[in-house]
Structure formats: C-alpha cells, structure tokens
C-alpha cells in the first residue's frame, strides 16, 4: 500500500507516530519546497539558513519529512525523493491522497482505526488514551492522541468532535 517504503513504520512500534507528532503538514511541504528550490539536495546548515530556522526547530520537521519518506538524510545532506517531487506537482486534493496512503500504513494509526471499525461506534477520547497509555505512558499518549487527530483529520480518515470528545471514521471526499 505504501508507495515510499523509505522510512514509514520503520520501527513498527506503537510510538512510531512520534516523528510527526508536533509538526504540521504545511511545515513539511514548505521544507520540501525549499530544498527543491535549491536543486533538490542541500546540507542541513544551508537549509537552516535558507528557511531562517534554527536546528532546534528545523530538526523535528526534517525528522518528520524523513519519516514520511519525503527526504533522505545522509551524512548531513538532505535529498528530496521521487515521492516529494510527486507531492510538489500535486494539487491540494492530490497531496492529501498521497499523504493518506502513507499515514494509513502507520501501525499506531492502524491500531486506532481498526479499533473504531471493530467497535462499530464512536470511540471516546478516554478509551483511546487508555489504549495508548498502556503502550507509551500517559504523558506521551496525550501527544500521540493529538497527532492522530491532526493527521487523521488532514487525510480525511478521522472525524473528531472536541466537545463530545468522540472519534469516528470518515470516508475521504472525492
């Protein structure tokens, strides 16, 4: 299902959402665009200068892009992948579909969506947090939950009501 195979679900564990937990889609796309503009490859220091961001802030975004299979990092050089190029030439809707294929394959995302499918009813935030806490501890579970909701909404596979704290699955719009 994944069309990258370069970094997705590498660890296979439940914390594997961690690299994209505190990064936005826009930041990742912005990074890919910036590297593309300087020829598709650049060292980390150059990128940091180009995008006017220190390494503390850039690091997690680079990590997220690598995790999604959008860049490779080797000896300090960051190179965009074919998947990146595809993403750069896609419109808003196509971009979502590409990212959806990746996210849908991430084990922890699967874990929760399978759980919702099997339950056949909305899942409460608390029951998801409980499942996640048992695996990663309660502190990380909160971050992981937020990330699941954020990315799940972005790829249009998850609907979440923050007032009722209920999560349901949805079918992406065409």
């Amino acid at each position, binding site marked *: 299902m994944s069309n990258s195979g370069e970094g997705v679900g590498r660890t296979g564990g439940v914390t594997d959402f961690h690299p994209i937990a505190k990064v*936005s889609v826009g*930041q990742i*796309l*912005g990074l890919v*665009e910036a590297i593309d503009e300087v020829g598709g490859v650049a060292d980390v220091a150059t990128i940091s200068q180009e995008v006017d961001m220190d390494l503390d802030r850039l690091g997690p975004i680079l990590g997220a892009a690598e995790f999604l299979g959008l860049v490779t990092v080797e000896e300090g050089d960051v190179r965009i992948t074919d998947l990146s190029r595809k993403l750069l030439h896609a419109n808003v*809707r196509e971009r979502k579909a590409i990212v959806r294929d990746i996210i849908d394959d991430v084990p922890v995302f699967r874990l929760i969506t399978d759980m919702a499918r099997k339950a056949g009813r909305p899942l409460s935030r608390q029951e998801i947090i409980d499942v996640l806490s048992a695996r990663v501890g309660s502190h990380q579970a909160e971050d992981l939950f937020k990330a699941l*909701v954020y990315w799940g909404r972005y*790829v249009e596979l998850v*609907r*979440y009501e923050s007032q009722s704290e209920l999560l349901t699955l949805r079918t992406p719009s065409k």
Partner: protein
Amino acid sequence: MTEPDVLLQVKDVSKSFFDNGKEFKILDLVRFEVTHRDFVCIVGPSGCGKSTLLRIIVGLEEPTSGQVLFEGHPIRADNPQVAMVFQSFALFPWLTVVQNVELGLEALHVDPVKRRAVAQKFIDAVGLTGFENAYPRELSGGMKQRVGIARALAIEPLLLCMDEPFSSLDALTAQNLRDEILQLWSNPDLPPEAVLMVTHSIEEAVYMADRVIVLSSRPGRMVAELEIDLPRPRNRKEPEFYGWVDEIYSLIV
C-alpha cells in the same frame, strides 16, 4: 464592456493624524489602479503606512484627502465585493472552522443550507476538509490562516485584500501557503478577480505579484510601480528574480 477592466482606483490618497494640533503625515498622494486579473503587492518599510492604506482601500478608514473608487463608486466598508485577510487571522475561538467560514455569508443573509454548501466548497479549496468541526485552538498557524482565506473567498469577492497574511507564520509554513494561494489564484473558476496584498517582504512581493507598488518610509509616497514579468512558478534562486529584489531594495533604502 464599456469600462476598461479597472476594478479599483486609488486617487491621490493622503492620510494624516493630528496630535495637539500637530500634523503627522502617514500617506502622501498615493495613486494607482487595480484591474481584473491583477495581483498587486504594496511593499514598503515598516511604518510607511501600507496597512493604513489598505484599511482606507477597504473603507475601514477615511483618507484625509483623495478618494478610493471601486467599480467607479466610492468604496464602502460593507461592500461584499471586497474581502479582507488579516495578519492575525481574526478567527472567533468559540466557533468551529465551518462556522467561522460561514460568518461572512451570514452577514449577507445567505440561507443556512446554501451557506453550508458554499463554506464547504471553500474549505475544500484551501485544503481544510477534515477540519470542519475543529476549533481554532486545534489548528496550526498555517491552518488558521487558511480559515481566514476560506472565509474571505466564501463571499466570492471581486477583490481580495490581504494585510501581511504570512507574517505571523514560520518561514516554512509561509512558503507553503504562498504557493497554495498562487495555485488557487491560477484557477479561473474561483474568486477573486484581483488581489491586493500588503507586505514588508520584498522577496514575497516579487514571488507573488504581477505588479509591485513601492512606498517610501513615512510619509508613504509612491516610489515606483513595477511590472514583474517573470514566468510562474517563480524560483527565488534565479538571477532574474534577484534582479527584481535588488532593484526594489535600492528604491527603498
């Protein structure tokens, strides 16, 4: 069409503030036009009055002298043909994404069913499908600004005004959003007919605009009006691009 394609006319607009009988001139005889399918950026150093100019253009403030005409008539603040995107997003925190987008349509008395459909169309156009029932606090900065853009576009304005729309965002998010706005702009089926954007970033102006209006520091006077004839999509690393940036820098400094 009898009239040529002129949408907006800014005619010798000046603005002063008065304090204890002393006059502080902010803008001095600014004059330009915006036509159909025009993407115009106003650029100038901070304090040159460019945001004030935009507020005058949308009718939120009165000029001290001069006038602003929209389709030949004096501009009014409640003109539904003009929409505004703000630097600070200006979202209502207690409303969801879709409710925020529907606000402008509510003011136009669009019925609820149509309102929802139109809001959904523009939420989709800016890539926010999936976040309809999220609250602003659940969104990243870039997504908040997308809501601002969707809300502005939903009233299907002829002229979209943007006041430093990217300056509260980090550099990466900003660049991504610039590109997506240009993507929307290149779609002739979507509003608006013209864009007028204020920015302090010369690079941003050259990246986005067909025309750049350069203002001096206070009082803001028009130093130049330049036609940026670079093909799109533009590459900020190309020498031609930098030629334009350098030229504008030399005009301001």
